[in-house]
């Protein structure tokens, strides 16, 4: 791919600087190259040949969370995040991927069976490298993870394992396919289980395509367009086989990839474009789907104070901000306290936080501060990536505040099971009540 292809978007950046106001990276670093207009100016420089395809250029382009805040705030409507991702792709084409990413993306993630086997073997070995503490685990060895970082363990058994392909609801009023996403499937199966239980309770039959795999975003975000499209193609082909009302996602990043990115990735592919269009029309976030069909039956009261964190890709990618709040506000007795700028990025951004842990911690610390100011005992969000990050931030501040997915909150007030929502499904076999 040519740098020149990006020129028509690059020239629309007037360099006004409005991106500086919202860019979380600029806020921490304060250097021009950190803000979007700096990155766009570097892309302009690459087009003109003023900079080589250098390691320093790759490093500058890696400093973006793809949180889309700049795009949402840009007076000229420039999609800065898309330009940075396009630049990463060009740099990967020219400079190649670092070995560790090549292994992770092209060997491990791209091959569904290797990935699944690895994820299954992972739990057996992880106690060797992770040290358990009450809130989660800490790495014993660096192994690509900062040793200060609170990380979740891989689930002993992934969500999809042992679930049938189709679970019919009694007196069904709808039928959906669930895109589980990697993090829910392998790290937080309890989120998936909560979502399935809520949907079934609400009279929605749930199909769980067993062949599904990663949406491809991690590869796309790292500039590996080939792997991303390969994974996208597989997702499209899998999901087109299921005649459903909607495809439900539990993660804003997966959801916006299925709904928006595929349309871009396959724009000029005559075979896949129609599949991407029909999938895009069906993809809905869990909260969005439930708020639209309306909850059935009374919700149990919950005496707690919660706040809500908007995942970047759920809020600015899928445009879902109203629906989760409606559902939270519908719960009797629950006190909902908004935090300051709830849609500001928590700094996770997938593998970004692996490569730039110190920066990610600074960004996260501001989010933690905003959460603490609300006095909430639990943070609700719609993205497992944010959950992992927010938990780490709260752990670093020594707080007892919990972070759960909206599906887990709804499960509590719909299924009326007073279990602590995060860990219960893992530790208590009694609560595995799936039909």
């Amino acid at each position, binding site marked *: 791919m040519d740098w020149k292809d990006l020129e028509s978007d690059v*020239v629309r950046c007037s360099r006004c600087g409005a991106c500086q*106001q919202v860019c979380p990276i600029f806020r921490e670093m304060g250097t021009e190259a950190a803000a979007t207009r700096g990155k766009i100016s570097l892309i302009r420089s690459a087009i003109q040949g003023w900079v080589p395809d250098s390691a320093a250029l790759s490093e500058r382009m890696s400093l973006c969370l793809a949180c889309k805040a700049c795009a949402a705030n840009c007076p000229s409507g420039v999609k800065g995040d898309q330009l940075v991702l396009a630049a990463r792709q060009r740099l990967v084409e020219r400079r190649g991927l670092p070995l560790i990413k090549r292994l992770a993306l092209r060997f491990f993630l791209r091959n569904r069976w290797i990935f699944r086997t690895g994820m299954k073997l992972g739990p057996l070995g992880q106690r060797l490298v992770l040290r358990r503490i009450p809130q989660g685990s800490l790495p014993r060895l660096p192994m690509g993870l900062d040793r200060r970082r609170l990380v979740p363990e891989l689930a002993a058994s992934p969500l999809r394992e042992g679930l049938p392909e189709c679970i019919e609801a009694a007196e069904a009023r709808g039928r959906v396919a669930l895109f589980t996403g990697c993090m829910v499937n392998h790290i937080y199966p309890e989120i998936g289980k909560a979502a399935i239980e809520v949907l079934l309770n609400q009279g929605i039959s749930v199909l769980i395509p067993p062949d599904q795999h990663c949406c491809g975003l991690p590869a796309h975000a790292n500039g590996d367009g080939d792997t991303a499209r390969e994974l996208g193609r597989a997702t499209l082909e899998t999901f087109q086989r299921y005649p459903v009302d909607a495809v439900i996602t539990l993660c804003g990043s997966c959801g916006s990839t299925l709904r928006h990115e595929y349309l871009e990735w396959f724009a000029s592919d005559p075979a896949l474009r129609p599949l991407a269009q029909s999938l895009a029309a069906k993809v809905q976030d869990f909260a969005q789907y439930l708020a639209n069909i309306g909850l059935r039956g009374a919700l149990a009261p919950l005496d707690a104070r919660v706040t809500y964190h908007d995942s970047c890709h759920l809020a600015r990618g899928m445009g879902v901000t109203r629906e989760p709040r409606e559902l939270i506000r519908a719960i009797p007795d629950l006190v909902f306290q908004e935090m300051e700028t709830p849609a500001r990025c928590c700094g996770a951004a997938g593998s970004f936080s692996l490569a730039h842990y110190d920066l990610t911690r600074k960004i996260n610390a501001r989010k933690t501060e905003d959460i603490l100011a609300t006095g909430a005992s639990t943070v609700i969000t719609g993205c497992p990536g944010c959950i992992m990050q927010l938990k780490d931030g709260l752990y670093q501040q020594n707080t007892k505040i919990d972070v759960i997915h909206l599906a887990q909150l709804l499960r509590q007030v719909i299924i009326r099971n007073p279990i602590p929502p995060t860990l219960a499904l893992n530790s208590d076999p009694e609560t595995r009540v799936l039909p």
Partner: protein
Amino acid sequence: MLNTETRQALIRILGPEHVLETPEDLLCYAYDASPIPMDPSRMPSLVVFPGSAEEVSQIVLLANEKGFAICPRGAGSNVSGGSIPDRDAVVMVLSRMNRILTIDQLNMTADLEPGVITEQFQNAVEKVGLFYPPDPSSKGFSTMGGNVAECAGGPRGAKYGVTRDYVLALEVVMPTGEIVHTGARTMKSVAGLDLTRLLVGSEGTLGIITRITVRLLALPPAKKTLMAIFPDLEKASETVARIFTGGMVPTTLELLDKTFINAIEDYRQIGLPRDAEAILLIEVDGEAESLDRQADRIAEICRQHGATRIQVAKDAAEAEELWIARRSAFASVSRIKPSIIGEDATVPRAAIPQAIREVQAIAARHRLTIGVLGHAGDGNLHPTILADERDPDEMRRVELAVEEIFRALLALGGTLSGEHGIGRMKSPFLNLETGKAGLEVMRRIKQALDPKNILNPAIGLGD
């Protein structure tokens, strides 16, 4: 190029974490928010981030000793090219010095460092019922130091004036390295020459501002927005002066022509009148009881001068819709053409109708689309040229048109720049306004204060 010894001396003063040296970083300081094309030959040698007036002073002394130029910079959000360096200059970014030092509620003043973001400062004083009015469109990311150096304005200038009207005192590192305190904390002071006024708007050529003392107002308790719709641009522009001669002082009085009205409606459907030739967006503020009276009186004046419809925002949400429309102006026209050249020439209020006629004639002559929107309340028109930087012929016509606009508006008793500054962009035209002798006086002042031409050479003084 800076020699190694000088580089090392700079790094010693600041510490390596506050110096940028990599070409990929330096390139990002070869531009600002002006339409001047990015040029790698203007890449600075080094970018430094001092943390105190003392560090600034040490660097300026070193510059005098070693003979390198310094280009001070805030957020780089100015639109005149005032922070674009010369080859080999050192760019000095003041963003690290970003503390609000005191907000004195009883004396209604505040002390702050130059790197404070304008809007963050405004929010901080509004929390205690005070008000800092200047509101450049870039206030969400511009720095107060930059605002002072450029004498920033904004829509509220119609009633509240510009940055100059609020700065009481400054701490400044002079081009020869001395740290000087200008002005006084009092509401009046005539002790010696008014160095504060000399430095406000000096575009980083006469000193580096390291501390600012501003006066504040009491926050007006309420405001109201109305929109007057005109079937004729001329009539709308004539109305502007009439509102003021009618005894009214709106906070903000913005004029948008049909190019902007339609572009905004295309972009986000707000319900602006597509059949109108122009609209005036007007905000009044003050005691809640006075607002209806003010709005009624302004509506009456607008009707007398040809407005066919007046729409008063029912509540804050509806008012916000209208101001979102105004703020979307540039976004919306950037969808017509990618390169937006916003001019800033300003005329006395009564000359606005003639100024608009001249701009339209120039647009027709050079086959360009020039939209008119502006802070009409203070005569600050922003004729906006829509072009494509990839079309050399069009860009040449833009250059010709810009010069003709300058000449035409100066002939109407106007000024080259209301609030954007001269910078690099308008420097060649400055003598049109000041005359040869006037420019010479400015240069003598620069020469006297900065004998080695260290600070922002080639900016703002007709070079």
